[in-house]
């Protein structure tokens, strides 16, 4: 027993310093462990390092990962062409549309330039008409080939779709039903596309267009055939606005409106011919 005690004391003398170091080391280890496992403790220490790394990645992303990303995208496109086409189709469609519109503008300008250089009587006459009419000469050429014509005007009550009045150059199917169907179509369009605050303004066939002009309690539909030029559109807009102001806003009987429409729009159609 006394031997054991002596041995222990000897150990104490010999290893005292090591034990103390070992205890300190264990304590330090526990502190480090606490810092690693405790988010609050670890965060302020790690964050600056991570931020530096993120900054470095942001600045050097293309040189570090560029080739891999390009390869991945290429493979992805090859493997799922249909999806890519579907995703790009609307964007490409818009680009093509924009391109065609721009090309048409250029063509129109080119026609104008060529006309400026031409000296034929026909061209001179066309230019005179264009000057007086306020239309571009290029519009005049198009108009000469497929001249726009006002075919029909319908004045329709907004909500009910009831026909208030109509004027038609050419015979048409039942206008009451047409008025109802156009109203239903307008309602459908605004419901289907969640456009309650907006209104349908045009229905377009190839060479036939329905221009729709909306007012508070009624709307007016102008059916136009031929190539609709901006000039003719403006003319129709002026007619409609003038008619709405002069006739419709005066709260007349339906029969009186019908009569006024015939006189008013017939005069305009005759003048346009």
């Amino acid at each position: 027993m006394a031997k054991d005690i002596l041995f222990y004391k000897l150990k104490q003398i010999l290893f005292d310093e090591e034990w103390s170091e070992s205890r300190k080391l264990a304590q330090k280890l526990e502190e480090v462990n606490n810092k690693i496992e405790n988010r609050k403790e670890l965060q302020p220490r790690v964050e600056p390092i991570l931020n530096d790394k993120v900054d470095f990645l942001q600045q050097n992303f293309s040189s570090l990962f560029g080739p891999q990303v390009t390869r991945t995208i290429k493979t992805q496109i090859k493997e799922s062409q249909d999806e890519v086409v579907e995703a790009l189709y609307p964007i490409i469609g818009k680009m093509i549309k924009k391109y065609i519109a721009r090309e048409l503008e250029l063509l129109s300008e080119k026609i104008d330039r060529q006309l400026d250089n031409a000296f034929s009587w026909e061209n001179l006459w066309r230019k005179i008409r264009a000057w007086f009419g306020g239309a571009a000469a290029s519009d005049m050429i198009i108009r000469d080939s497929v001249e726009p014509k006002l075919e029909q005007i319908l004045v329709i009550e907004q909500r009910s779709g009831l026909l208030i009045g109509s004027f038609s150059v050419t015979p048409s199917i039942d206008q009451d039903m047409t008025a109802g169907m156009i109203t239903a179509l307008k309602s459908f369009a605004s419901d289907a596309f969640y456009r309650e605050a907006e209104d349908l303004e045009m229905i377009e066939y190839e060479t036939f267009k329905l221009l729709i002009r909306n007012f508070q309690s009624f709307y007016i539909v102008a059916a136009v055939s031929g190539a609709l030029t901006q000039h003719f559109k403006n003319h129709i807009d002026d007619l409609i606005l003038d008619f709405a102001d002069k006739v419709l806003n005066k709260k007349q009987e339906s029969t009186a409106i019908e009569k006024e429409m015939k006189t008013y729009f017939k005069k305009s159609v005759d003048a346009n011919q």
Partner: protein
Amino acid sequence: MLISKKVILLGKFGVGKTSLIKRFVFQKFSEEYQTTIGVKVDKKILNIHGVELNMLIWDIAGETSSMRVPQSYKLGAHGVLYVFDVTRPSSYDNIQKELQEIGKLLPGVPVQVVGNKIDLLGDVRLQKFRASFFLEGVIYASAKEDVQVEEAFERLGKAILQ
């Protein structure tokens, strides 16, 4: 004197709204069921006590509830024909609630309720049905056999003109 009015037909799908209009406007009936897509507008002029009533009839596609029909189709209506199928309880189970909703959306607008397809019930069953049905003023009609169709529209027309 010609007065134009908008009449809409409401009711669940397959109750015979289009058939009633076909019978009323064109005197026709077809066994083939074709679901209505969106709206179809027809018209018929009725003479009610010397007044020419130009009825613009909107045949609106049936839904599981008339509240699911776009509101804009219903706005501006001067009269409503609410149709149900006498052989299909699901088409009239909720009828009171549906009529209340229509009344809220179109206050003061006359509504005529029509129980269609009575030809499928037969006289005895129809009598029992009428006796047990909780709504009053319903017109029991058959577009197939042309029973009470004209009357339904006429009664609505009269109510609109009142």
